[in-house]
């Protein structure tokens, strides 16, 4: 339990009395942040007591800041509201007797299983906004259920395989629903779902030859990928393509060419990675970019010390992660940021090398050390003999060369206390509704933080690294793909023989 942080002993932003900003600002509501598609609101907010910052339309016309604090900016006001809510929750925890604490810190497995299982068979009309994301819905339910070690019944598994087969395009890749254009992100969701199901029927339903052709068609001349025919190019597209290709063992030089250089160009002056060159460093893209580069064995193209510093600073007084500098905490970044920084625990060799270079020539390594052009160490690797599937496999065999670089216990505290919803499911932050996206990524982040202090991939975490009762322990994942580790191994075996 992290006592230092909650209950108002806020260390970070402290956007309070010290501010000397000029103009009073209106407290304007920001529509909910993050990457996910708009979230339907199927459940009532369980903590809908305190005033919620205005409807998403952004109206809230005349809500002048508290007269006591007249000079706060929008960022400060929003931050303070969240800090206050979180502090209320932690205050209860710190004041509780120890057996009550233990109950408070419990993962409500049964409720989450119930919520997720229900969604697989019943979604209300409000979900029509996710009608082009149905393989995502499958993944957001099936993956957290696997994290909870919940076995689906065979009929349901077969039905999921059948449904995803209907989303598979005849020319390769998966669309957002039956008959929709194939899209890299939904392809990632579909393939990860099938890998998580893991049956022979599931794995063999993926048409790998056509998938490969689809991916080649999505490749831009820059080396980066576009999401779909005529679609947008960004780091998400590159990650989903590389992750899927690696997982089903179709990654080759042709697909890999130029992607690493594109991603390296998206690392910003802050240290994190943006969606495209020059945009703002962002947790989702930072995970995507780093994971893709590791799968390509090109992680040295990033300035890793700088990246680690940026991610480490995204964990805030609420104990969870924010997605960008000076934005609000959000449970889904438990995975995007938490997994990104956990990945670097296995990259110590490269990091040491980069630090050495930056000391000796007083220049950060990154670009200068390795060259972002396709020269230097890149061309050496680009021989056709490269066994790309091995990079994902070898990575997970490697031990963690250092302990967690983030506060793994604090993160678990945020997820368990601020993100869990009593009726089941998890959410962005107190005051928000649960949804399947956040359930998936909060639980993925919980798993990552529980295992972040183990040294090798086979051992179980010590009780002191699992906050709450030890029964909170989830299944471990392969953090580059975000599928449960056992399922990954089954798929790896299966696709190695193909």
């Amino acid at each position, binding site marked *: 339990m992290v006592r230092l942080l909650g209950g108002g002993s806020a*260390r970070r932003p402290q956007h309070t009395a010290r501010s000397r900003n000029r*103009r009073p600002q209106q407290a304007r509501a920001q529509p909910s942040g993050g990457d996910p598609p708009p979230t339907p609101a199927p459940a009532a907010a369980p903590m809908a007591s305190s005033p919620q910052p205005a409807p998403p339309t952004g109206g809230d016309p005349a809500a002048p800041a508290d007269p006591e604090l007249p000079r706060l900016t929008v960022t400060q006001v929003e931050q303070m509201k969240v800090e206050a809510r979180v502090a209320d929750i932690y205050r209860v925890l710190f004041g509780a007797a120890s057996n009550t604490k233990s109950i408070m810190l419990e993962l409500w497995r049964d409720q989450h299983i119930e919520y997720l299982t229900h969604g697989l068979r019943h979604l209300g009309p409000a979900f029509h906004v996710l009608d082009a994301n149905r393989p995502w819905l499958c993944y957001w339910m099936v993956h957290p259920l696997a994290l909870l070690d919940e076995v689906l019944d065979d009929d349901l598994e077969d039905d999921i395989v059948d449904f995803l087969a209907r989303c598979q395009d005849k020319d390769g890749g998966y669309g957002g629903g039956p008959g929709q254009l194939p899209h890299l992100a939904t392809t990632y969701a579909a393939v990860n779902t099938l890998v998580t199901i893991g049956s022979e029927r599931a794995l063999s339903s993926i048409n790998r030859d056509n998938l490969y052709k689809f991916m080649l068609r999505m490749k831009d001349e820059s080396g980066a990928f576009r999401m*779909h025919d*005529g679609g947008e190019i960004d780091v998400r597209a590159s990650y989903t393509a590389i992750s899927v290709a690696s997982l089903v063992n179709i990654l080759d030089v042709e697909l890999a060419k130029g992607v690493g250089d594109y991603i390296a160009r998206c690392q*910003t002056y802050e240290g994190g990675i943006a969606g495209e060159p020059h945009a703002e460093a962002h947790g989702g893209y930072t995970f995507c970019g780093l994971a893709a580069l590791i799968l390509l064995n090109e992680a040295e193209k990033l300035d890793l010390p700088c990246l680690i510093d940026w991610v480490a600073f995204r964990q805030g007084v609420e104990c969870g992660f924010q997605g960008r500098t000076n934005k609000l905490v959000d449970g889904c970044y438990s995975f995007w940021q938490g997994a990104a920084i956990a990945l670097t625990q296995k990259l110590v060799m490269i990091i040491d090398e980069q630090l*050495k270079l930056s000391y000796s020539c007083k220049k950060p390594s990154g670009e200068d050390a390795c060259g972002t052009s396709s020269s230097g160490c890149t061309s050496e690797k680009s021989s056709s003999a490269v066994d790309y599937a091995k990079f994902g496999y070898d990575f997970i065999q490697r031990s963690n060369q250092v302990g967690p670089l983030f*506060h793994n216990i604090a993160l678990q505290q945020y997820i368990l206390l601020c993100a869990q919803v009593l009726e089941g499911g998890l959410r962005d932050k107190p005051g928000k509704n649960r949804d399947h996206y956040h359930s998936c990524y909060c639980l993925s982040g919980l798993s990552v933080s529980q295992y972040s202090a183990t040294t090798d991939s086979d051992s179980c975490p010590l009780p002191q690294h699992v906050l709450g009762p030890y029964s909170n322990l989830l299944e471990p994942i392969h953090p580059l793909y975000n599928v449960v580790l056992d399922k990954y191994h089954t798929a790896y075996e299966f696709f190695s023989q193909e």
Partner: protein
Amino acid sequence: MEHAKSGPGSWPEMADVVPVPQDDGPSPVVPIAYRDDFREVMDYFRALYLAGERSPRALRLTAEAIEVNPGNYTVWHFRRLILEALDYDLLQEMNFVEKIAECNPKNYQIWHHKRWLAEKLGPDVANKEHEFTMKILALDAKNYHAWSHRQWVLQTLGGWESELQYCNQLLEEDIFNNSAWNQRYLVITRSPLLGGLMAMRDSEVHYTIEAILANPQNESPWRYLRGLYKGENNLLVADERISDVCLKVLKNDWSCVFALSLLLDLLRSGLQPSDELKATLEPIRNSNPEMADADLATAVCCTLQKCDPLRVNYWSWYKTTLSSQIS
């Protein structure tokens, strides 16, 4: 958009079209309980999409389908094919997409469509695009899609003239707006009108230091300051204003994490601490007997371990990299 959606049978112009229901199979998963109007629009859409009908009525139908779900990228894609086939007025299309964007400002498809249109329309629309993103950013100054679009327009179509001033304005409204700092970095490094980072660095360092001194707990300008010397640690160390700002802030608040962490980077990169700096850090050292003999960087790192408990693991690791540097 002209259709009155009053239930089934309200589509006279589709009288000859056989709707195509979604093929969810006998035992669907993640089934959405679609409302009738949604299902009807999509059934007609599937029919025309499968038939590849690129007609005015198909264009109208895509507008309906977009209205019920602007996240359906297949519909947007088909709409682009129709627009091309019909040689449709793209300025009018821009009005259409802007109306949708105002209600759905966080949707990938809409912004991608807008980029596609702007690319076809060329530099003439640059300023109009800037006005639009400004409008969206006035509602949410950190909208990621709007910023990406704005950056793309600047770099592809131009319109840099007042961009630095726009950044100034946004930062004046909210100095914590990291998106505006990021935009500022783009302008400083990429604007063809300002001469690039080298030309701008000096005044930017000045601006940033002012921002830090006004709000030392604001992380954005601290990161921006380092960014101004990205890849040139030697120059970062050589610019005395950088260590000075750390010193000034630490004199007021010796536990300011951002100041300590920048100072640590400076020391690691070879900063020779001035007597004044040593004197300022003396109380830190004295508070910790085991640090008495440690080098300054290690002492700062130990301080960070204490006053930044959330990052205690990070600073512990950082300390090990310092000792390996010495050995």
